[in-house]
């Protein structure tokens, strides 16, 4: 451990410390009015996450460094760590108005958000199966709490939380059991060593154990990424959870897992001989294809916007997996780039949903968006931009990301998946356009209240929108950074 090590751990440290600080603030609330504590917690979170993000960017680009056997800080962790932190920051900012409208204490939510972020951050740099487990569980347990955290959200949130807890728990068990099996057959938990061992030939007599271990690890990861057939929980949780928490689930929790998957595939791909690698790749390819088709088909006639975005996230993670599987020089870059674009987009979308929602009555049904363009043109434009980005229409980040992703997939000769991707995209266009058409509908229905955007929400939306267009119009700076940080 050299003297610089603390520097790379700084973002994680700051995040965790902020979580603690918020918890303390909540604990010592005492006679101070509720709102004041909430605002203090919010300010602490914003500051903490901003500081973490700043330090993350400051240490990014340094030479790869291993800290304890569990973590490695390299390009992947730099970028995805930044994505996780930025997403979390955006969620906190977007949540502000929503939470302030609540009729109950809400400072604990910030503590849980920060903890979950810390878990995701740990995931981005974990190079070790135990690191994976630790990060994942920190994240998951926070999420159980977060989903159920808003009492006024009512039974829906409770139901969602319970489902998530049981299913995610089971998935964790699969993951842990898989890891144990791998450990049993190979004798190491470090990812590079593990894949090296595996590629050197499965230890005689333990094929069953090894492949079962791999399969179970995939179940765990597939569940987190909501890949088909481990996707059933997604729409219910997305719908039931409070809107800002849904945004968190859709971005922060995905970022960390993608980082791990990236390492896994890269490690497997680097040493792959066709006969070894193929098994894993075929399963992943099947998951990807199924996710793309099933996700898009399920979203097709969906009337609830949050569910629709949930299904679309299933499909989008399928797209992302295609890039991962493509391998080569372009594959990982395309995957990371896609994740960034997706995170920006989905945050923007859920940002609008959040701003339009009250805990008791969230802006779920498509009818809530009818004629939005004429009532609140800027919000509707932001939503339209997000939806178009999801559909991959030019001028938005989604377009460039999809272009890059397809290029990578073609480069990697993943023609079958590309075909499925095209079919899925076409299906997607239909329901994305439906959202836009609903927002343009005339005559606009009379609506009761129009929720204020709030300053921090406005800043977040504006920033996300700007980045969305920036990536869509002039992506070369982003691609350059990716090239530098991801090497090659």
């Amino acid at each position, binding site marked *: 451990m050299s003297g610089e090590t603390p520097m790379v751990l700084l973002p994680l440290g700051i995040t965790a410390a902020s979580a603690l600080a918020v918890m303390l603030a909540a604990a010592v609330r005492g006679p101070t009015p509720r709102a004041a504590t909430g605002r203090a917690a919010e300010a602490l979170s914003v500051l903490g996450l901003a500081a973490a993000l700043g330090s993350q960017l400051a240490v990014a680009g340094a030479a790869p460094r291993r800290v304890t056997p569990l973590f490695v800080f390299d390009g992947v962790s730099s970028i995805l760590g930044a994505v996780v932190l930025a997403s979390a920051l955006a969620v906190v900012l977007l949540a502000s108005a929503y939470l302030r409208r609540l009729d109950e204490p809400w400072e604990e939510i910030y503590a849980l958000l920060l903890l979950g972020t810390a878990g995701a951050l740990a995931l981005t740099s974990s190079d070790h199966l135990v690191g994976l*487990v630790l990060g994942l*569980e920190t994240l998951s347990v926070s999420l159980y709490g977060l989903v159920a955290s808003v009492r006024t959200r009512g039974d829906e949130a409770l139901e969602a939380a319970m489902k998530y807890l*049981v299913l995610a728990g*089971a998935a964790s068990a699969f993951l842990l059991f898989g890891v144990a099996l791998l450990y049993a057959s190979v*004798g190491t938990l470090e990812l590079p060593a593990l894949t090296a061992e595996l590629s050197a030939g499965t230890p005689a007599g333990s094929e069953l*154990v090894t492949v079962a271990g791999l399969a179970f690890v995939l179940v765990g990861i597939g569940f987190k990424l909501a890949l088909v057939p481990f996707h059933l929980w997604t729409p219910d949780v997305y719908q039931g959870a409070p809107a800002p928490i849904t945004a968190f689930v859709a971005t922060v929790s995905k970022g960390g897992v993608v980082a791990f998957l990236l390492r896994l595939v890269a490690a497997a791909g680097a040493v792959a001989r066709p006969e070894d690698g193929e098994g894993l790749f075929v399963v992943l390819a099947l998951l990807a294809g199924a996710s793309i088709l099933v996700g898009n088909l399920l979203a097709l006639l969906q009337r609830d916007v949050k569910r629709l975005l949930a299904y679309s996230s299933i499909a989008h993670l399928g797209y992302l997996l295609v890039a991962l599987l493509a391998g080569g020089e372009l594959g990982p870059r395309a995957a990371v780039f896609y994740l960034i674009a997706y995170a920006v987009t989905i945050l923007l979308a859920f940002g609008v949903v959040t701003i339009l929602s009250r805990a008791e009555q969230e802006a779920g049904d498509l009818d809530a968006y009818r004629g939005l363009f004429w009532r609140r043109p800027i919000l509707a434009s932001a939503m339209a931009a997000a939806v178009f980005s999801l559909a991959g229409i030019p001028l938005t980040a989604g377009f460039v990301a999809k272009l890059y992703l397809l290029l990578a997939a073609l480069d990697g000769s993943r023609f079958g998946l590309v075909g499925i991707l095209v079919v899925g995209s076409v299906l997607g266009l239909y329901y994305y356009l439906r959202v836009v058409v609903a927002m343009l509908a005339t005559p606009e229905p009379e609506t009761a209240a129009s929720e204020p955007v709030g300053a921090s929400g406005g800043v977040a939306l504006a920033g996300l929108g700007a980045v969305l267009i920036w990536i869509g119009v002039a992506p070369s700076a982003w691609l350059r950074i990716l090239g530098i940080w991801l090497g090659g």
Partner: protein
Amino acid sequence: MAGEALALAAVLFALGLVGLLVRRNLIFVLLSLEVMLNAAGLAFVAAGARWGQPDGQVTFLFILAIAAAEVAVGLALVLRLQTAFRSLDPDAASRLGG
């Protein structure tokens, strides 16, 4: 030796899974979850023993903590669920869907 322990762990895991699927009471569902997690823990211990490394045991400790945390949150939710739905049937709360 490790083989047998792993097999036992697998059986435990399967039992937990079956319990999760068939039990109609959330308390038992959570219990089944515990069984599955502990099966994983047992497998870790067995694997650690096979390689003569401490990693297995260390991980087992982690798993204990994880399981505790899961159950803690889980039980809290069960409490609220019971007041909200007046039932502990895991399928009672199924308003979300479609």
